[in-house]
């Protein structure tokens, strides 16, 4: 187990290193940042000063080395737009994105698991069939269009929920959260619902498939024969055994929620990382793009590592085979 973990860690570090190279090469293919930084009527000296200030006159490999050194120190340079360290700007937006992602995961599990259990236990009921057909729709509907429809219905037509911003936030641990005020919660509703529809469909289908697979097993028959209560059978014997794939998928989907925050945050003007990166791409704010990419790489490598470890701890079969 320890050897496996060490190997897995080395592998993760290697992935991060490979990604730094890819990101660096990719970003340097973008058009010359000098042209957007400097006003057309700037004189030659001013140009040279700014080029030297951002190190744009160095050869690529030496830019890469200083980039790698900066990455290790968490220094990606100052944002062209904000004039502050890029990492700092992004980290200040991260809680908003995380709040959205965590709320969406919670909602998906709270709705998806019970629906899946129901559909698995009563597969022929009308409601179960209706939900399964609905989940195909949930899989198919493009996220951004769903967001527009929700805005159209709840904000424009009914006028119940706000369509943009975070609302009133409360400081907790030095960071503002929308989660603790009614106004903030009402602002959370639509973006979280948008992000959740796909995940609810996914989790529901997985739980349903899991229940259908577990129910005919011998140990369920045995537990029934022992005279266990229906509750205990369901929550201990069935639920525990279908949780492994569900936990894995929740981990991986958390990553995709952060990725799709790019879309939801743009539409709902949610001031998180996703909106920030779209704005940065539009003005080619290079340090910002690079810092965002490296944070994303770090987040995903960490998530994959955690999912792997969880998977190993939860499933004795995997654990034993790796010992």
């Amino acid at each position: 187990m320890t050897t496996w973990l060490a190997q897995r860690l080395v592998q993760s570090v290697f992935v991060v290193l490979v990604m730094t190279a890819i990101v660096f090469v990719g970003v340097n293919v973008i058009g010359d940042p000098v042209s957007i930084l400097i006003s057309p009527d700037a004189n030659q000296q001013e140009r040279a000063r700014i080029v030297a200030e951002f190190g744009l006159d160095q050869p690529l490999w030496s830019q890469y080395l200083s980039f790698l050194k900066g990455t290790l120190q968490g220094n990606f340079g100052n944002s062209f737009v904000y004039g502050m360290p890029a990492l700092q700007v992004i980290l200040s937006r991260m809680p908003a994105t995380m709040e959205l992602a965590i709320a969406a995961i919670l909602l998906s599990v709270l709705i998806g698991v019970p629906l899946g259990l129901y559909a698995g236990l009563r597969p022929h009921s009308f409601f179960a069939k209706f939900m399964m057909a609905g989940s195909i729709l949930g899989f198919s509907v493009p996220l951004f269009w769903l967001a527009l429809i929700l805005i159209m219905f709840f904000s424009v037509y009914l006028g119940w929920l706000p369509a943009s911003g975070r609302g009133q936030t409360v400081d907790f641990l030095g960071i503002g959260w929308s989660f603790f005020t009614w106004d903030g919660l009402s602002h959370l509703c639509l973006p979280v619902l948008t992000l959740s529809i796909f995940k609810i469909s996914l989790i529901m289908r997985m739980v349903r498939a899991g229940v259908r697979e577990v129910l005919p097993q011998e140990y369920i028959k045995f537990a029934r024969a022992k005279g266990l209560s229906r509750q205990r059978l369901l929550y201990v014997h069935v639920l525990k055994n279908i949780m492994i794939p569900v936990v894995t998928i929740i981990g991986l989907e958390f990553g995709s929620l952060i990725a799709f925050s790019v879309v939801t945050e743009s539409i709902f003007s949610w001031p998180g990382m996703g909106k920030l990166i779209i704005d940065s791409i539009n003005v080619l704010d290079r340090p910002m793009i690079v810092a965002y990419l490296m944070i994303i790489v770090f987040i995903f490598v960490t998530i994959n590592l955690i999912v792997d470890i969880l998977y190993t701890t939860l499933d004795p079969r995997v654990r034993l085979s790796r010992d």
Partner: protein
Amino acid sequence: MSAHASSASRSEQDEKLPITETPVRRMVREFMASPLAVSGLVVLSVLSLLAIFGPFIVPQNPYDLMQLDIMDSQLEPGAQSVAGMTYWLGTDDQGRDMLSGIIYGLRTSLGVGVISALVAALIGTSIGIYAAYAGGRTENLIMRVIDLQLSFPTILVALMILAFMGRGVMNVILALIIVEWSTYARTARGVALVERRKEYIEAAESLVIPRWRVLFKHLLPNCLPPLIVIATVQVGRSITLEATLSFLGLGVPITEPSLGLLISNGYQYMLSGKYWISLYPGIMLLVIIVAINLVGDQLRDVVNPRRQA
């Protein structure tokens, strides 16, 4: 769902049918057993025809400035134009007929989706089958690259590629190919690993047939069924991804709008109650993707080798 309902009757049919039924015929028959999937296929065929012959049937060429009248902008569905034409789905901010705009958008969306999925399939399958056949270090390296790529969400990878390259139809297709080849490669390798141990490959190898011929003439055709299923679903994913990227302003250019860009154009008018500019292209998008997913779901059931056993 419907697959479950019909599976019992299907196995009864299997016993009664003569043994001479070819695998392709069996697949067609099983596919036809699901009314949902068949209706999906019909919808897809109609939409494809609409996309191909679109320019001949649209009421108005939305990109011919001579045919546009700015007085007609933002008209409601069913309104009459200055010239007396009826706009069944309304007009956008430039006074373009939405129906014609959607048919043109359909061309771009379907075109980008199908082309990128096909090219990605070609590249991914070749690499996957080669990996399985070569084995050893080559296979290991290819699989590492695939794992690396699949551990990041496609939308972010595509977003970054387009951020580096700028918008454009070819750039979108290229970005979609780059994010999608790995899915095909992984599946192709998996299938090929099973197939290559079978006797017909051994037989082909013992005749002195060139290696590429064994790969592409013998191994490839037998790996195709699951890859066709993936390709179907991937066309849907490509269309969604392209629409999302275009919506974010990183996809196709304004001169060749796809459904995603049409939705994005209408987005700013939605808050003032002009719903039709975004709503109808979105419904078209949803119909395509649901149809593709229905067909793909049924294909998966039909092709799945576990069900045949």
